[in-house]
């Protein structure tokens, strides 16, 4: 059976009739309903504007781990793209790769952590090599910036050793990362500018 437009379907003879044919053909209501797209486009536009306002070309500098809960800070200095030393209550890692356990780092009272220091020196060599390659294309020199992403419950004994290792490896500009909060103590998210 063929698919036909809904509505009146007179017989062939009736539709060809001079008397009734015109009545049936004329005055038909359109069977096509218009879909209202305007509200949807309005909503899409508002959504795009909102998301564009929150867009960050830097992306995520830190890899947020469930083992590390950052302390709250009110300062508004942005993190720069640099190597990240993550310090949880269990382990110390550099750019996501585990370097040593915290228990190994705190075993003695000396300041230096040779394993971390060596990993940082290797990282520095890599940065300097890539900077040398990029220098012709306008790249900048080694600035010694490092981001420290430490859990809020870590003791200063661990943090000072990490900072010392950074310093020894030439990373003297240390950025301590924290969750940005307003003065009232509310954590700032995309919805809380």
């Amino acid at each position, binding site marked *: 059976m063929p698919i036909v437009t809904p509505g009146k379907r007179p017989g062939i003879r009736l539709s060809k009739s001079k008397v009734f044919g015109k009545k049936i053909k004329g005055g038909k209501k*359109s069977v*096509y309903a*218009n*879909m*209202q*797209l*305007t509200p949807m*486009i309005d909503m*899409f*536009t508002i*959504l*795009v504007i909102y*998301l*564009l306002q*929150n*867009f*960050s070309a830097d992306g*995520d*500098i*830190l890899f*947020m781990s469930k083992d590390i809960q950052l*302390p*709250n*800070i*009110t*300062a*508004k*200095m*942005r*993190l720069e793209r640099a190597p990240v030393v993550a310090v949880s209550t269990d382990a110390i890692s550099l750019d996501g790769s585990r370097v040593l356990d915290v228990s190994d780092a705190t075993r003695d009272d*000396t300041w*230096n952590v040779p394993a971390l220091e060596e990993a940082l020196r290797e990282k520095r060599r890599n940065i300097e090599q890539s900077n040398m390659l990029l220098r012709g294309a306008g790249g900048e020199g080694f600035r010694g910036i490092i*981001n420290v992403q*430490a*859990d*809020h*419950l*870590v*003791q*200063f*004994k661990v*943090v*000072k050793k990490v*900072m*010392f290792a*950074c*310093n020894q490896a030439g990373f*003297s*500009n*240390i*950025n*301590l*990362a*924290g*969750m*940005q909060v307003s003065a009232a103590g509310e*954590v*700032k*998210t*995309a919805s809380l500018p």
Partner: protein
Amino acid sequence: MGGAAPVETGKKGKKSLDSELNLVPFIDLLSCLIAFLLITAVWTQISALRVAQTGGLDSTPPEPPKDNTIDVRVTLTDRGYTLSLAGALVELPKVSKAAGMGYDTKGLVEKLKLVKTQYPDQRAVTVAAEDAVVYENLVDTIDQVVAADLPDISVTAAVN
């Protein structure tokens, strides 16, 4: 009107003046844009505190304070803050807070603001901490010092 079909005039033989705008590519573009922005959105704002470390094994002695500045040192101990202003010590013991005993950050900020008023060129502060001090307290202290318009922070270990 966006998406509206041409209005039928009911008169035969006349072309409608309203033309239909093709919105499908526009909706496609918006959908792709929304999907991309949702994936790349950064939902948490992360800030940083820039510090330098002093002290350690082979550290050079700290520079003497410049003209119109003094040596300011904030030490975190298990008892509270010890503020050293050009050698003069001020004790700021822990105060009771909602979550138990905590550091008197308000008192510290008040003292540091007084220093800033008296020495407008002052920028440098040394923050020292004992080994057992929790990182959260250290960061909070540095944050308060920066808020008191003293942005050059050096971190070192407190001499027990």
